[in-house]
Every structure is written in C-alpha cells, then in structure tokens.
C-alpha cells in the first residue's frame, strides 16, 4: 500500500526533490552588491545599446564574411569526420553485427564505453589538449570537433539501430540475407531519416562549437568576437554575432526543409540540391583547409610535433614531476571543492533556464498564439509569440562561451556568472523543445477547460502541465547533462569552477593538475548522465 502510494506520487516527489536541489544550489552564492563589478551595470547598458547599432562598415562586414567561412569550413570538416567515426563505432556499439551471447555483449559494452569517453570531454577541452600537444593547426579544431561529435552521433546511431523493429529483420534473415545485406536492406533504410535529421541538428551545434574554437587561438567568428570584446567595441561584437545567428538559422531552415521534403512520396528537387550542397561544402571546406590554410596532416605528425606531444602527455601523467597533483592531498582537496562548486553551478544554470522556459513556453507555442488551444484570440498573442521566438533564437545561437565572455564584464568572477551564461544559452533550446511539446498536445481536454472558464494559470496547472510534464522533464534532464559538460568551458573565461582552475594550470604548465581536474570533470559528467537517466526512468 505504501509502495503504491509512493509510485503514484513518484513524479510529485521527484519534482519537489528537484526544486529543493535548485534552491540549495542558490545558497552557493552570496547575494549582495559585491556580485557586480563597479560600473558593471553601465557596461550592460552599453552592450544592450550596441545590440541595436551593430557596426555595418564595409571592413567589418568583409571580415565577418571571411570569418564565417572559416567557422563554417572547420565545422563541415569536423562534423564530416564525426559522421565517419559515428558510423563505424555506432554500428559496432549497436551490437547488430554480433551474435547474441556474452562475447557479443562484451564487445557492445566496450564500444559503448569508447563512445561515452569521446563525448564526455567537451570539444574545447579536446582542442586545448590538441593545441598544447600538436601546436596551432586547423586540424586541432577539426579533430577536436570530430571526436566528441562522433561520440554523440555514434551513441544516437547505436540506439536507433538497436531500436529497429524485429519483424522486417527476421523476414530478411529468412530470405537468406548475409549480415551486410541485412544492414543495407533492413537496418540502414529504416534508420536513415532519423540519422539524417539528428546529424543536421548536430551540424548546427557544430557551427557554434567551431566558432568558439577561437578560444584556443584558432580563427573564425569567435576569434573576432573575442578581439572586439577586448577592445570594448561592442558594436562589432554584435555584427559578428548576427553572422553567427544567420548561419545557425539558415542551417535550421535547411534541415527542417529537408525533413518535410523527405517524407513526400515523389522526389523533390530539394533533395538532389541538398546532396550537391553537402558535397560542395565538403569539397570547399577541405580545399580551404589544405590550400588556403596550408594545413598538412603530414606536418602534424612530424618528428618535432611528436616529440612535443610525447612530452606533453608525459607531463600530464606526472612523469618526471616530483609531486604530481594526483598524489597530493592538498590538490585533491582543492579539486573536490571545485567539483562541488561546478556541480552547484550546473544545477543553478538548469534551474534558471527552467524558470525562464516556464515563463515563456506558453506564449511561444504556435497553437496558443493562434488561439486554437485556449479558444481566446488576442492580437498581442502573435506579438509575444514573435518576440519570444526571436529571443529563443538569439539565446541558442550564441554559444555559452560568448555569453560568458560578455557577462564577465558585468559580474565579478564566480559561479553565478557561469550559471547565468549557461542558462542564457540553454533556455532558448529548452524553450524551443518544450514549445514543440505544447504544440503537439492533444487540444481537446484543454479546450474543454478553457470553455469552462479556466484562466491561463489554471489551464497551465490542470491541462498543460500534467500532459507535458514527463516530456519537459526529459528535456530538462537532458539539457542538464549537456550543461554539466559545458561548465568547464565557461570556467575558461573566469566564470568559476573546474574550468577556471583548468585554465590557470594550463598557463602555469601544471600539467599533472590538469590530469586531476580532467579526472574530476569526467566523473562529474558521468555522474550527471547516470543521475539523469535514473530520474528519467523514475518518471516513466
């Protein structure tokens, strides 16, 4: 009986626990005036003012176009390589090529572990490690993108392949098809559309990640944003950001067009056009990298570089160091306290994003804006819809790191600016995903509520929340995993936590410290994945 009571109220309990955890995370901050820089508020005002007066001079526009191309070509090359990695590892990790049995599941677990390791480390950390070991080369950016993206894509591919319905596969088996024939006639056609749309989504993310590769000294839009911020030229900053938003929005449009045309029964010209565009982008990107950037793979593996890399990794493992950080009690203490801070920062960030999402999600849903869901039509519904949707786009098109670079002008270093930067980026994504859930709602019960006179708040409490809650929670937990992975990045620019220390140790060449910090970071990421999966299963 008691257990039954628990299981019916599982969701309620979980919600209260999550709210409690969020409130606890807020205690990590001293809420007083000391949070702001003196003059921080006037800087905020200047930044906002510049938003409406971006620098549109010819030099800046030309520079922006050039940087956009660099960002785009690194992203294309990196994600292209990631697809290859994901394809191979994804097939192996799905287990479809192994016989059922202990050996098969062992291989499956191993390849899943490899994918997990690749995606646990953020692309910027990979980039930093590559730059530190191989030197500045476009390949540092490309490989840094390819590894974690390959990990994420591979994991999704593996899940999709493992979820393929059994019946058509069994039927193909009974026609005597070999394993590869099963793959090309069964598995692949079934998962193709899903793979494509997820890959397009990751490509959009790849653009943002490519933009922030600048942080370790590689060119592109992020590099220009950083230079302009250092010169306090906020009007230029916004110009570059608008270019970044423009490509993100374009790719978003491309992928939604592709998805809608794909399901048509007849072939649409958009499909061959997309294939051509993809091929063109790939060729263009690699040509640029080889010919204009003069990057060479052979040089990357020159004896000089290998010597460097060897030294770097030897240092990371503390060889030749008299007291490597991971054998030092004091270092451990410091690292654990930073880990604790980072955890609280991530919770604060997802908490802020969730609050902002809840405040905006209803007016941001198309079926609320056109009055179909609530049966009330007001002219201002479309205005609020448009404003919030533009806000979402702005929020998610700007990478966390860029948000952090701006916010650090206003707040003093600490975990609050980090959490705010993470929240600013994630609330747009969360809002978009959750608004889509509301748009897919079954409208009948809600209309009934509306027609019996329920107000907006009541509709939210009784009609919308119960039906969307599980999906929202899934997205919130999923974004929390992503945020956890990104905490280290905002730390790089002084927004506190493990990342800040990581950067300091890099500057002081304390390589064994870095190993310790990375270890804590990976543990944190894995813990977050584990907790979020557990919570998701609980509400199911």
């Amino acid at each position, binding site marked *: 009986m008691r257990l039954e009571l628990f299981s019916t109220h599982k969701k309620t309990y979980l919600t209260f626990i999550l709210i409690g955890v969020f409130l606890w995370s807020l205690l990590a901050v001293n809420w007083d005036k000391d949070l702001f820089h003196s003059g921080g508020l006037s800087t905020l005002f200047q930044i906002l003012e510049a938003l409406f007066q971006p620098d549109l001079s010819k030099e800046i526009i030309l520079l922006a176009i050039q940087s956009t191309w660099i960002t785009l070509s690194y992203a294309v090359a990196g994600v292209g390589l990631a697809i290859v990695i994901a394809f191979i590892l994804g097939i192996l990790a799905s287990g479809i090529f192994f016989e059922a049995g202990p050996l098969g599941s062992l291989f499956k677990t191993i390849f899943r572990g490899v994918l997990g390791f690749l995606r646990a480390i953020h692309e910027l950390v990979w980039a930093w490690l590559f730059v530190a070991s191989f030197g500045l080369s476009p390949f540092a950016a490309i490989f840094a993108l390819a590894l974690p993206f390959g990990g994420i894509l591979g994991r999704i591919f593996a899940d999709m392949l493992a979820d393929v319905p059994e019946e*058509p596969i069994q039927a193909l088996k009974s*026609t*005597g098809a070999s394993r590869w*024939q099963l793959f090309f006639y*069964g598995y692949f056609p*079934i998962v193709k559309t899903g793979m494509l749309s997820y890959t397009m989504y990751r490509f959009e993310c790849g653009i943002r990640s490519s933009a922030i590769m600048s942080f370790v000294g590689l060119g592109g839009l992020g590099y220009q944003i950083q230079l302009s911020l250092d010169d306090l030229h906020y009007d230029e900053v916004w110009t570059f950001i608008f270019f970044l938003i423009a490509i993100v929005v374009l790719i978003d449009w491309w992928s939604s067009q592709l998805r809608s045309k794909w399901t048509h029964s007849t072939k649409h010209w958009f499909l061959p056009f997309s294939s051509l565009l993809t091929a063109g982008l790939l060729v263009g990107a690699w040509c640029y990298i080889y010919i204009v950037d003069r990057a060479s793979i052979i040089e990357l593996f020159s004896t000089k570089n290998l010597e460097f890399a060897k030294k770097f990794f030897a240092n990371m493992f503390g060889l030749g160091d008299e007291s490597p950080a991971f054998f030092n009690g004091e270092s451990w203490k410091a690292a654990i306290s930073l880990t604790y801070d980072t955890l609280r920062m991530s919770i604060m960030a997802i908490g802020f994003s969730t609050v902002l999402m809840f405040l905006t999600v209803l007016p941001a849903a198309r079926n609320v804006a056109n009055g179909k869901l609530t049966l009330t039509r007001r002219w201002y519904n479309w205005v609020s819809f448009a404003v919030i949707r533009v806000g979402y786009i702005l929020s998610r098109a700007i990478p966390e790191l860029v948000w952090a670079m701006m916010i650090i002008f206003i707040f003093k270093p600490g975990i609050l600016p980090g959490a705010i930067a993470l929240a600013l980026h994630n609330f747009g994504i969360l809002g978009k995903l959750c608004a889509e859930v509301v748009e897919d709602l079954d409208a009948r019960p809600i209309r009934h509520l509306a027609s019996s006179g329920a107000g907006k708040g009541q509709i939210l409490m009784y009609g919308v929340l119960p039906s969307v809650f599980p999906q929202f929670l899934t997205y919130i937990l999923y974004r929390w995993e992503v945020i956890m992975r990104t905490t280290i990045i905002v730390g790089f620019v002084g927004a506190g936590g493990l990342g800040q220390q990581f950067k300091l140790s890099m500057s002081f060449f304390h390589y064994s410290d870095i190993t310790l910090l990375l270890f804590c970071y990976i543990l944190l990421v894995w813990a977050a994945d584990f907790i979020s999966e557990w919570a998701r299963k609980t509400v199911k």
Partner: protein
Amino acid sequence: MASSNIIEAKNLKIQFQGKIALSSLSFSIKKGEKVALIGPSGAGKTTLLNTLATIIKPDEGELWIDQLSFKEMQNRKMLAKKLGMIRQQFDLVDQLPVIHNVLAGKLSDWSLFKSLLSLIYPQEKILAMNALERVGLGDKWSEKTSNLSGGEQQRVALARLLVQKPEIILADEPVASLDPARAEDVLAILTKLVHEEKQTLITSLHSVEYAKKYFTRIIALRDGMIYFDLPAHEVSAKDLASLYVLKEKV
C-alpha cells in the same frame, strides 16, 4: 521415412520458463500439401511455425526438413532455398521502394556488391516485375512501401516469396490484420501461387472458414498438443466447437 514427406516432426517439445508450449508433437507433411494450423490463442501455432523455421530450437524431439542435416539447417542461405516465411504485415522494410522489398528474396544468391548496386539500379528487374504482375501490383514497383495499403503490402511479401522460390512456405497469420475482402484476396493469391509453383504451404489461421475453403488439411492445436489432424473436408462442426470451447472453470 517416406521420401514424399517433406517435413517430419517426432516428439517435439518446447518449454518457455517452465511452461510447456509444445508437448510431444509428432506429424509429417507431404510435398505439395496445404496445411492450415488452427486453434485458440496460445495453443502454440506460432511456436510451432517458428520451430519449423528453425528460429526456435526444440528442447526435445527431432525435426527433419527435406533430409537437410542439422548443419545444413544452420546455413541461412541454404535454408532460404527450402523455407520461406510470411507473417502478419510487418515483414517489409517500409522505407524502401516496393521493388527492393521484392528483390530482397534474391539476397541469398547475390553478392554484397550486387545487392548494393541493386539499391541504386535494380538488378534482375524483369524477375521482380513478373512477380509483382502475378500479385497484381505491376504498377506500384517504384512506390515507397509504407504508402501501400495493408493488403497490398501482404501481396508485396508474396511477390518476395515468388522471387525467393522456397520449397516450403510458412505463413504465420498472414491475413490477421486485414478486412475480410482483402484477407480472402491475399489467401486466394497465396494458395494459387503455391499450387502453380508446386510448393508446400503451412499457415496458421484464426478463421476456420478460410481454413476449410483454401486448404487441404487442417491441424488443430490446443494447449500445445494436436487436438485433431484431418483432411479439410472431413472436419465437422462438432470438432470445431469442442476445439474452441473455453476450459471449464473449476
């Protein structure tokens, strides 16, 4: 063992987690017979078909399929020449055009290269088109399979079997989710093709009426045992009534 028997089963016994699914089944099926398996839900019809298809290994007893040795039965390509399967609807890859689903029946003969090439430029297209003509879908070859109706999809599965040309066809509720008109249509085509190709057919069915109309022999299963095994025209209404009667509650 008489050489005209294409399938021989002796004391087949299968258990799932301690529950008996099939208990000591023995029967033989001659070449060219059209057998309907009937019986209430859970009687073991699907289990028996899966056992004949060698997807499930019997816990006890022996099974001979056209004198194939155990080793030969393990070889999927060789087995595909002997046995073909059709189930309720979900046999096809929805996302592929119809013609590739039909040509999948040829995969055991094709090299990997040829099967990949075929996805771009259909190989042995005439063969597939003939099969589609015979099931009355000649004009639908380039459609996406998911756009076809349930009955049409079952006919595509039949066309695949025509291309595969197995000696024995095992059909598990091939018309379960179709409306009566389409169900009769699919069964009529299936039995006609089997007759023309001189194949052997074993089909599980819910409908006794179809079993009597289209099949030569009826095997009734109940609780994992053979309840009766008679030529179709000898099955009486009394037999059927007692087959489907609910167990008396104690």
